[in-house]
């Protein structure tokens, strides 16, 4: 062993990009702090059911990596934590991380869930992991494969934390077999010295209410792609059954490019993942509802990746009707929704009745991307995503030396591209770490 302490890396965000980058750097022998705002690692990928084009179960390929980051001796996993300050420069960053109180002792919690069962708010709190389609308790884990498998008290939902009182005794405390519930926990600030930083803070999806013509938020059977993903997931609120408005739909209509490539929403770019996840969703409908009528309205299909065009071909052969024309409006007729669109090949405007409409909403920068960029001293490109030092030759470097970007915070991308970029960011970080180690800083 070297006597000198090895320089460390900070990875912000523990979705698939941050997980992959952290694993690569740690495997090379450098210590990594992996900071995640949510109570569990996993990010968006953990919300997915299957992945295109191979239809691998998302959890099956992601969970082993989640477990690895949780167990790797060189990875210091800091979940439910946020970076609040970054000072210094490449090779010598000084970082402050805020550890939010879980009100659950991380060393004692065994993840049994007795607290959640006992909680007075069980089944009453909107489950954001399930895109609001399910309900949970005020003390929760996001999903069963969570890493770490430690419960967290939601400070916005817990009766005691919001109102100062929760009956005569704390039900969660009474139920916990290991005495892990601890309302005395306070926020902690942790100071870190790192040589390099990887930013992997992910993306948001556009609120489809920005396109009011589609009736999202007005009709419960108009869903976003991510909501539909949760319905398809065996671990989701319906146990993987596609049930909307209490019944299995007979017709499903998918609408591509909702908010993307659209001057009105300010999202001029193509979101890159929607064509393929819509094809995947269409396949899942066919798989689970063999008799359902499945229609996808599109303006262009962009199946550019390895195996993608083949997947699109396959899905079409599964009795999925692709109709060319971007729908203009969704409204109600009786108990059906009507999608009004010009079928541009027919040169006719058609009304297609359906039980469910699924909107392929645009990938957009995280709602706090501006704050994160300011915190880290990064520039953003006009689309709001983090800016590369050079769009072609230095695509992994941010505009601040020593800080690298990976995944969808740099722009929309699918899982293969995200993992590739994460590995590239890890490689760049390892160059910085190696140089730092050599210079003895």
């Amino acid at each position, binding site marked *: 062993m070297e006597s000198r302490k090895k320089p460390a890396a900070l990875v912000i965000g523990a979705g698939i990009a941050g997980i992959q980058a952290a694993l690569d750097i740690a495997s090379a022998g450098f210590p990594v702090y992996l900071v995640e705002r949510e109570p569990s690692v996993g990010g968006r990928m953990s919300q997915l059911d299957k992945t295109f084009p191979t239809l691998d179960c998302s959890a099956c390929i992601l969970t082993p990596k989640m477990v690895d980051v949780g167990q790797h001796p060189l990875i210091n996993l800091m979940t439910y934590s946020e970076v609040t300050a970054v000072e210094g420069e490449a090779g010598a960053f000084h970082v402050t991380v805020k550890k939010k109180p879980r009100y659950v002792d991380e060393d004692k919690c065994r993840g049994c869930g007795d607290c959640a069962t006992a909680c007075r708010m069980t089944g009453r709190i909107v489950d954001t992991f399930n895109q609001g389609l399910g309900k949970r308790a005020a003390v929760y884990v996001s999903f069963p494969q969570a890493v770490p498998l430690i419960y967290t008290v939601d400070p916005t939902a817990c009766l005691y934390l919001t109102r100062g009182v929760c009956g005569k005794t704390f039900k969660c405390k009474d139920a916990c077999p290991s005495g892990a519930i601890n309302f005395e926990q306070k926020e902690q600030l942790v100071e870190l010295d790192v040589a390099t930083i990887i930013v992997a803070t992910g993306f948001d999806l556009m609120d489809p209410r920005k396109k009011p013509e589609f009736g999202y938020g007005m009709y419960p059977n108009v869903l976003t792609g991510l909501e539909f993903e949760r319905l398809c997931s065996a671990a989701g609120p319906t146990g993987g059954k596609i049930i909307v408005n209490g019944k299995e739909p007979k017709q499903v209509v998918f609408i591509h490019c909702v908010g993307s490539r659209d001057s009105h929403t300010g999202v001029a770019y193509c979101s890159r993942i929607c064509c393929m996840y819509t094809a995947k969703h269409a396949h899942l409908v066919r798989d689970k509802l063999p008799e359902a009528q499945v229609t996808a309205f599109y303006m262009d299909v962009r199946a550019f990746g390895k195996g993608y065009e083949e997947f699109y071909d396959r899905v079409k052969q599964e009795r999925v009707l692709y109709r060319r024309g*971007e729908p203009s409006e969704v409204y109600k007729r009786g108990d059906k929704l009507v999608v009004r669109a010009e079928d541009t090949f027919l040169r006719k405007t058609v009304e297609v009745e359906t039980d469910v409409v699924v909107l392929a909403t645009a990938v957009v920068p995280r709602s706090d991307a501006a704050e994160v960029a300011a915190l880290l001293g990064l520039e953003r490109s006009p689309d709001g995503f983090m800016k590369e030092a050079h769009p072609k030759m230095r695509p992994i470097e941010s505009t601040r030396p020593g800080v690298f970007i990976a995944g969808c915070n740099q722009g929309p991308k699918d899982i293969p591209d995200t993992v590739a970029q994460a590995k590239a960011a890890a490689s760049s970080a390892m160059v910085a770490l190696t140089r730092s180690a050599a210079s003895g800083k």
Partner: protein
Amino acid sequence: MQIDTLELSEKLGLYGCIQCGKCAGGCPVSMKTTLDVRYLIYETLTGYLPDPTHMEELWDCTCCFTCVERCPKDVKPAELIIGLRSLLVENGTIPKAVTDALQGIFRQGNPLGFAREQRAAWADGLDIKAAQEGCDLLYFVGCTPAYDLRVQPIPRALAKTFQAAGLNFGTLGIEESCCGNEVRRVGEQGLFEMLVEEGKPLIESTGAKRMVTTSPHCMNTFKKEYGLSGVEVMHYTQLVAQLIADKKLEFSKKVEKKVTYHDPCFLGKQNHIFDEPRAILQSIPGVKFLEMDRSRERSLCCEGGGGRMWVEGTNMEERLAFQRVHEAADTGAEVLAVACPFCLLTLEDAVKVQKLDDRLRVMDIMELVNLAL
């Protein structure tokens, strides 16, 4: 007639079109007539545009601008239709009803064939100040409200409301001329420019800081196409909603009615004024407000705009107004409230033809306000 489609494509920025069909897909008449604005764009771009003299469907467009509102690439599909109509105007091949309306505007300042001297007759006995003498608020009445007997009660109610609220307002009296909103939309660009040249200095000379219109159509062109300086243009629903919020207008009577509201395209879709009309209706004591499914941005056009108040268009059997009044009646409403003179006339006619007059009455919001004062 020969058309330079290259010039037209460039002038109107049609090259940006991705042929997604969102325009035609949302076009209110695209399911009942042969008008397909998406295809027209492609025909223009490729030089395959047929002779527009024979395109009767060009007169089907209501200029509701749903296509413009929804185009993801900022192409303005309706402007192509207006552009083609312009060429027909130059060529002299336009429907007679349009020619008559335009001549009326040229000669008498209104499309309805009435004398200019009669333009202020609606205000008899109201003692309204001449805006030319100077005022804070200019009330622009509009042609149809000034002359049409069915619509006249609306400007009267508005004038009385402004008086009750103590506003220093005036009108242009018989000097008021057509705003030209529809003139531009039927393609008579020359006449439109003349109306702006004459109207703009007249309006600005009043010194009014605010200008309110009865019709959303007038408001639209004053706001977007006149380049008025120092004058804030608003629709009456905005002003009345403000008066109610400021407690300058208080209701003394109850109007025990179930009321739904039809968003006029020029007010809602094109100018995003959705909340104020609803706020007025909901503040009237006794009114039970009911919303139709297709409302706000998804409101169904009544088919009375863009020159369609003068020219019938093809396929008059399936009027959208017929569908619309049934949608209104289906909510259980007794009153279908509107905030546009053309919506009022079009929908009222539809109520009669559809024999819904025993269940549903079409009223302007100001008529309801008037009942409650």
